[in-house]
């Protein structure tokens, strides 16, 4: 079974599952298909620090497979009720203060999501890493694998290369490095604080750092996760998005 954190991470960042055997692609495909139909609900806190401000958002999120995702801000009060819905390649934001839904235009998918170091693109494109990239085992140590992902020539992706480091025993991600098209490292995500959540052993903390601004970071902490809820696609609708 794929881990629950991986479900969330995949939704957010398009994390590809660790590879267990020689056929990396086939393994990834199997892992990816295991998510279909599986669903989750989570309580997440997101702590964003920039050069100019620092704040923490408390959120509740739902996911169904890798195509559906909904999150709603619980704290702070100023933004309570701001919600994001992702269905396939589209993203909407709901703004309770003005009671309006804004659809993110394709040209703004590279923009920041909720002020964090995660982009709208991460929500959409990240979830299909196994389809857009080719994989190669870069390094294998006693404890981990390092897998290099290069985009397929025709894939419309923003990264030039991804390198995953996966812990062998528990098959959990340790870190991901992101490279731009000039193959310069630009961002890193580190997973740690592995513990049992919702009945599974998962890294409960994920830290995203833009390498050009060393003092900035976005830190996501997963609290409660419940798996395999009776969620249907109907749930991930604009109506649900607007419901307070």
């Amino acid at each position, binding site marked *: 079974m794929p881990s629950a954190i991986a479900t969330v991470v995949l939704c957010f960042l398009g994390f590809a599952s660790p590879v267990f055997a020689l056929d990396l692609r086939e393994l990834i495909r199997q892992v990816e298909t295991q998510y279909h139909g599986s669903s989750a609900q989570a309580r997440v806190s997101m702590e*964003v620090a*920039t*050069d*100019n*401000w*620092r*704040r923490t958002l408390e959120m509740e999120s739902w996911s169904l497979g890798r195509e559906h995702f909904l999150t709603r801000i619980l704290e702070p009060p*100023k*933004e309570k009720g*701001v919600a994001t819905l992702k269905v396939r390649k589209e993203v909407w*934001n709901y*703004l309770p*203060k*003005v009671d*309006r839904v*804004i*659809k*993110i*235009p394709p*040209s*703004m998918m590279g923009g*920041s999501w*909720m*002020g964090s170091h995660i982009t709208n693109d991460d929500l959409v494109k990240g979830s299909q890493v196994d389809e857009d990239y080719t994989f190669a085992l870069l390094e294998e140590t006693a404890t981990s694998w390092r897998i290099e992902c290069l985009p397929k020539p025709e894939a419309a992706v923003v990264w030039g290369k991804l390198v995953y480091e996966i812990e062998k025993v528990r098959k959990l991600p340790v870190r991901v490095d992101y490279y731009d098209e000039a193959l310069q490292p630009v961002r890193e995500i580190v997973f740690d604080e592995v513990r049992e959540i919702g009945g599974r052993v998962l890294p409960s903390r994920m830290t995203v750092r833009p390498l050009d601004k060393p003092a900035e970071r976005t830190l996501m902490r997963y609290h409660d996760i419940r798996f395999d809820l009776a969620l249907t696609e109907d749930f991930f609708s604009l109506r649900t998005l607007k419901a307070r």
Partner: protein
Amino acid sequence: MLPRLAFRNLWRNSRRTLLTLSAMVASSALLILALGVFSGMFADMLASATEQYHGHLVLSRPGYQDDRDMFAHFADDPDLADQLRRRPGVRGASPRLRAFGLVAHGNTTRPAELLGIDPERESQVTSFSRQLIAGHYPQKSEADAALIGAGLAKRLGVRPGDELVFLTQAADGSLGNDLLTVSGIFETGAGNRDNALVLVQLSWLQRLTVLPGKIHELALTIDEPMAAAELAASLKPVLPDGLALRTWGQLLPEMQEVIASYDVSRLILVTILYAATGLGILNTIFMSVLERTREFGILMALGMKPGEVRSLVLLETLVLAVISLILGVAAGIAMTLYMQRVGFDLSPYLSAVTYAGGTLPPRLTAVLDGQNLLVPAAALLLVALAAGYFPARRAARLKPVEALRED
């Protein structure tokens, strides 16, 4: 007596001289008109580049104009703005705050640049108030008014009175979002403004971005845009620490290049038009020298020196040049003034062209500029003297004995 002789010699073949003269008059007059139109286009472009957005001088934190970092703000100090506005040569100062975000109407969302302004003061600097195609320019009292570019309005499908949602990242990291009401739609002809710019009240944007009392820039409009750099230097001592002035030339380097290339183009135009004229003058003077070979022989036999013969021929050219110069400049001024007053509307055939940060409206107008008279006049004199030089040299080198033998 030499000038008198030169003057009379010109009219020996009056038809030929008149033809050459009219060519010279026409070319210099047309050149003056063309340069005037050129300057008119240039003035339009400069006006559009500055009065449509930037202003002539912009005061901001040093790096702000390059990276538009929202945190490179400063306090909106009314004393500073007043002090700057009262300086000689400064016509107006407008405080502005800028935010980038998403603007939405119905199901459509577009990226947009929001410029928070004080409508009254902004109209001293930019011409948005005169470029409305629908609605009205916001009043100070309309707190949620938005003046929106025509292209953006069309894409969003909004008309005056419609509602807009704006979403941006505020200075405290929160999601600033609020509703606006479209008060008017402007069209500058510049795509980057018409398709992305929304003007809103400064106080509204300050509240939305959580930047109370802050601005990003103070845009100034001045009397002499061409002397912006000098004025900026003279204002430097009164500026508070940590703020710097940028001139329109620095904000629009392409425009600066256009000015530089304008001088080159002007010379090219002068050269092309005068090359033909020069050949005409050369031909006329050469013919007249060849026809007078025997006469030059006699004059030289009488004791006229080669240098005096050369002066005589050059003088003839000079007289021709001066006459055509007076007539040509007069005609050129008349045509330029006419064009300036009446103009020429090209909008049925052309649409506005945006280039180097400025917009060329589809009209022909002209500007009377001393340079545009001086350059053609000086060039005509030079060309005439150059064209006269070769025949003059030929006449001066005649040998009297041989010249006398000719009939």
